[in-house]
């Protein structure tokens, strides 16, 4: 039982949000299915440590991170081959090379950008298969031993931040049509402050994320199109910053309760939600009635 499925069913932004929010460590195998890059036989391995992207490799390609080092002449293949065996087990080669002065921090960042570019490209695929090999239950030292440390820079980025970047860059929005929030939905903030630097529209949207104001009203207030606001909202959702709250114009149930009248005694359920809004009415709870049905149902177990 693992996290697996098709990209057309569960999108990469959703998946990265899930791996981030669950603090997952492991290997995400992605087999894209597209005419110009069919990776069925050479899948992408996207590596996560505690919900953070730490590297990307291909099944049949080695030395991703070090390609840039050789390309730019920062180190020769001969020096790399000499230094590699000295890198302690479970330590990313990038941080080791930096610790001995072979590479600078700037060079490491440039190396990580190569990884990141590959991952961002993955977000553009409409079709593909993914499966996550979960290491989260293992000890940290064991997890690190399973990671391709000889191809890692040691730099990491939160899964949600990667998803946010990918969605800012994409032009391919058709595949997300069913996941965009409804025009009538509100947005609820999940954190008091955004940990990511937001672009202008996202910042404005963040201000309106009071769970009440609908996307349509926000778009009108911001003099922007519904579509653009929905896309920005989706970005914030995938960044783990807001949650869509569907709206419905629920009238008070007290209008006519007789046909479905709840029992009249006992304690009632909470009367206000987290935003202080009055939720729709529900039935009150009769303890003896509930116990009677519990006894009845237990006979069916």
């Amino acid at each position: 039982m693992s996290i697996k499925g098709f990209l057309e069913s569960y999108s990469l932004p959703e998946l990265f949000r899930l791996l981030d929010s669950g603090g997952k460590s492991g290997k995400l195998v992605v087999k894209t299915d597209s005419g110009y890059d069919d990776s069925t036989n050479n899948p992408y391995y996207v590596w996560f440590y505690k919900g953070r992207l730490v590297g990307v490799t291909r099944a049949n390609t080695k030395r991703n991170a070090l390609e840039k080092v050789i390309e730019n002449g920062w180190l020769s293949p001969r020096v790399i081959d000499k230094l590699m065996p000295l890198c302690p087990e479970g330590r990313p080669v990038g941080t080791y090379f930096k610790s001995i002065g072979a590479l600078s921090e700037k060079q490491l960042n440039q190396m990580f950008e190569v990884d990141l570019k590959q991952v961002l490209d993955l977000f553009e695929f409409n079709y593909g298969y993914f499966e996550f090999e979960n290491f989260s239950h293992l000890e940290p030292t064991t997890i690190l031993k399973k990671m391709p440390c000889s191809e890692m820079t040691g730099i990491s980025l939160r899964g949600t931040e990667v998803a946010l970047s990918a969605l800012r860059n994409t032009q391919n929005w058709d595949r997300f049509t069913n996941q965009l929030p409804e025009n009538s939905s509100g947005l609820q903030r999940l954190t008091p402050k955004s940990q990511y630097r937001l672009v202008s529209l996202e910042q404005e949207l963040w201000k309106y994320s009071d769970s009440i104001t609908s996307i349509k009203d926000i778009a009108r207030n911001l003099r922007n199109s519904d579509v653009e606001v929905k896309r920005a909202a989706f970005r914030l959702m995938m960044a783990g910053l807001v949650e869509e709250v569907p709206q419905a114009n629920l009238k008070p149930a007290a209008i006519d309760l007789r046909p479905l009248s709840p029992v009249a005694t006992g304690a009632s359920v909470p009367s206000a939600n987290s935003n202080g809004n009055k939720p729709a009415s529900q039935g009150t709870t009769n303890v003896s009635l509930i116990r009677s049905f519990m006894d009845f149902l237990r006979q069916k177990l």
Partner: protein
Amino acid sequence: MEKLKIVIVGPVGAGKTSFIRSISEVEVVDTDRRATDETATRKHNTTVAMDYGKLTLKSGKVLYLHGAPGQARFDFMWEILIRGVHGYILLVDAHRPQDFHSARQILNFVKERIQAPMIIGITHTDCEDAWEVDDVCLALGLLEEEDRPPIVVVNAISSSSVAKCLVTLLEHLLKVAAAVS
């Protein structure tokens, strides 16, 4: 007459109609109709109105079960559903990640707009492609274990499994009632 009203919600095909059929003492009113939209790719038939079932004790006390149409938007149907409701069961199919988004929407709606006690029933966990219950919870945005509503694995076509799920909800109702009294 004393009544309890339980509403079963969830995406298309999560098992809501089966759930009610498995336990109801009366023939469940068949509100399934041939699906004509994108739902048709999931099920040939889908629930277009509310499924309805009931359980009656010798004393005449009744427990009503109402199933929400899977493809329902958050419209007038919910107004009918929430009248006098005592608790909800959100059914989520563990092997259909494409439905997690819809389930998450329903969950947020019930949490924020209705706030009746709710539990989550995870179905189809025995299927080959099923996700772990904990991963389904993450996909629903339920991150912290202590903040989650009760979660049960349920086989919607087994009356004993459905009974167990209902008992879990009733236990939760008692806890909520005790907490606010």
